[in-house]
């Protein structure tokens, strides 16, 4: 695929990310879509470690490292400073992990977007505190093993729906994206850049060590999350206008779970349970997007059929 993005690289090779790191794939494509007039604010996260181990930097654009709870606050301050200097060309981006967004950074984020601060807040989501050793976060999905939900005490709580939380703030633009769909990601980044006010991008980024997957299927696994409707691609404008962006090849959730070691303990009954949860969420989303209930029914029955025949269609 050819991306409608900057030919230049804003990320240098030689960084310390693990092989196949989804966060780095996200960051590389994201910065190519943003172009050079960008400042990144990175609260504590994998990316913080990857990008800025003193005295080196991976990025060819300015990066400000921020404390873990303060990503949105620092971004707000930077925006204000740039405004005072009359710099309207530069876009401020907060780039945080799921821990720095869903949990530790949430109050700053909620406050900043309530003020409709003019920045893009990106949550690259690898569904746990990977950098510190795979501890569960409120983004960790139902069914996952982490070092703090070990053995049979796997996480039996749902993943927080951060997108809906942001939509509830009625900010101009909220969208999900996925490293396996770079063209969609680039389009959303450019759209976010063109809108004034608070923009939130939720980018699904796989983590081979944390998800217990071989590095080479990093992108493929992320793609399966979309195909199984576990991580639907959609965007919400002004908190009300929903658009679903992907309605292509469908898979049963089992396909996605089976390739990952963090779900290896799940049984057929668990998959059935999870399939129901996913279909419930997917049906809800489709209703929000104005699709007929019948449409949701068709989707759901075809997914059921796929589970029975264990076949990708």
């Amino acid at each position: 695929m050819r991306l409608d993005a900057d030919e230049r690289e804003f990320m240098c090779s030689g960084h310390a990310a693990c092989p196949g790191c989804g966060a780095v794939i996200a960051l590389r494509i994201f910065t190519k879509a943003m172009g050079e007039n960008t400042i990144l604010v990175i609260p504590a996260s994998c990316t913080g470690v990857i990008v800025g181990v003193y005295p080196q930097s991976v990025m060819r654009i300015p990066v400000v490292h921020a404390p873990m709870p303060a990503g949105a606050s620092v971004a707000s301050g930077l925006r204000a400073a740039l405004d005072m200097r009359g710099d309207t060309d530069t876009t401020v981006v907060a780039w945080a992990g799921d821990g720095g967004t869903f949990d530790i950074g949430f109050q700053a984020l909620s406050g900043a977007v309530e003020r409709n601060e003019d920045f893009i807040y990106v949550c690259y989501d690898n569904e746990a505190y990977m950098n510190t050793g795979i501890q569960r976060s409120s983004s960790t999905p139902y069914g996952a093993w982490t070092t703090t939900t070990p053995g049979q005490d796997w996480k039996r709580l749902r993943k927080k729906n951060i997108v809906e939380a942001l939509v509830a703030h009625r900010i101009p633009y909220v969208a999900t994206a996925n490293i396996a769909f770079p063209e969609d990601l680039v389009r959303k980044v450019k759209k976010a850049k063109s809108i004034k006010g608070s923009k939130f991008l939720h980018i699904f980024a796989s983590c081979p060590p944390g998800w217990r997957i071989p590095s080479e299927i990093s992108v493929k696994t992320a793609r399966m999350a979309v195909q199984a409707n576990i991580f639907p691609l959609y965007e919400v404008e002004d908190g009300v206008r929903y658009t679903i962006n992907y309605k292509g090849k469908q898979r049963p959730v089992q396909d996605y779970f089976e390739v990952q070691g963090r779900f290896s303990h799940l049984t057929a009954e668990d998959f059935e349970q999870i399939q129901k949860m996913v279909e419930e969420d997917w049906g809800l989303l489709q209703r929000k997007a104005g699709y007929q209930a019948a449409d949701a029914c068709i989707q759901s029955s075809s997914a059921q059929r796929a589970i029975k025949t264990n076949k990708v269609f």
Partner: protein
Amino acid sequence: MNVAMGQKPFVAITYETTESNKTGSWRFLKPLYQDKQSPCSAGCPAGEDIGMIEMLARQGLFKEAWETILRENPLPGVCGRVCFHPCESVCNRKDFDSPIAVHALERFLADAAVGAALTTKWERLPQKNQRIAVIGAGPAGLSMAWFLSMLGYPCDIFEALPEAGGILRWGIPEYRLPLAVLQSEIARIEQLGVRMRTNNAVVSETFDELRRSYSAVFLGCGHAHGAPLGIAGETPESVKDGLDFLRRARQGERPLCDGFSVVIGGGNTAVDVARTITRFGGNAAILYRRRREDMPAFGDEIAMALEEGVELEELVAPSAIEYHNGRLRLLLRKMKIKGQDKDGRGRIVFDGKKTVKKVIDHVFAATGATAAEPWYSPPLAQRGVMGFSHCVLLLEAGGAPVIYGGDLTNEAKNVAQAIASGKQAAMVLDTYFERGIDEIKSRLEACVVGDGPALSMEAYLGGPRGGRSSHLVQYGEINTDYFQNETRVTQPRLAVEDRSCSFNEIELPITAESALREAGRCFNCGLCDECDNCYVFCPDAAVIRSGNMENRHINYDYCKGCGVCAVECPRYALIMGGEGL
């Protein structure tokens, strides 16, 4: 905090990049760009580089696509129409939705090239001293002459009939292969300097003369004589030769076929004879000793024949024929299926003593053909005889080498195999002259496409695509996430009422838009089409592209060997190999 008023606080600022960290040292598997073989290419007897042809066609590079066909096959206009396209039955896309319509695209490219009067300055090897005589201007002889010319040999073709083309000119009706199409292909071969000596039958004395005056002789005079049925009461008048009937029809005659004719046989010739009879206003039935699904004729042709009014009677075998009140009476024995033959078709046995009698006006035999003269057939294995999959080389003192090809040596007798034979014979002869007899086998082996026996002239000439790995790409190796279901192009046809009363070509051309769309469906198995997925997804920004394929490479200083590029390659053009590679 002891920051004095007016002083900036201390901030750690980096001025260095990470490029001094050579993360390539982490790697234990190495991605490598590697072109591989597509099943279609290996399935094509002529070894056409189909994946590349469709890729060029999709990019709108019709001329380059056409030239790529001609590299391996001098008769694309013919093969796009009459070849049984084994490429399509092995196409990996069949497991996804439906195979690529390779034959329709081949025909489109050939017709487009003729329509645009495309010519090309062929890169040919320097002229050699040896002159070659080619006997028989059928598909094998024409291919032999084409490939020999590419290899620098001047050659003369000797043809007994007044025009070149062999079975293509005299055995296939015009509604399947229009004369103009064949003529333009032959003209292109002649443009290479091949001399066409028609009306020049070679008999056994002139053959010896040719062996003295030429450096080698290629014998490719085909199986042009219909085999008799071998039934009681059979005479050349009562049971006519189907091939001869077609030949006379193509000569412009209107051979006798009024009333009701039966055609014995199940191959394309039988179907062609029956359909030609209906076009001349007669009624025809095909009698076949097996069932319809066992017929070697193309399924589509059979279906169209039935639409045109041809009848089909299965499981009957002729046993005797006699004259009866000025007509013919054919005695047929009923057959039945019992078990299965080695080739998967039903094994037939007599159905007790059941017989049928049929009173008809004409009987045509189309049950197979043989060589016209016994000396056409290649000698049995002995000293001085080298056998190959598609040709036989005879070296003996007192005469130039003779190489037998086409139907004379091929197990399967069709156009694509004849082309394969001409190509193989050209390679055998060239290697014999240039490097000696001991090198022939090994040189041919180096040019095999996939598992063989198809050979690649590109590989023989040392072209860039000759360096493909021998790995045949399987469906499971294609990343189908990058492909969407799309319907296969359907070739438009003349309506049944328009076609059954004329010899106009039935299959109509597809549009350029359809051709582009169809070529776009191709997986291009094992071929990099510069889709850039490797570049887009590389987490280490270690895929370097400089505008063209030659310069696309991986920066192993930084590549950590994660393998994402290889998995996300839609076409399996990247592999992960050990560090030693």
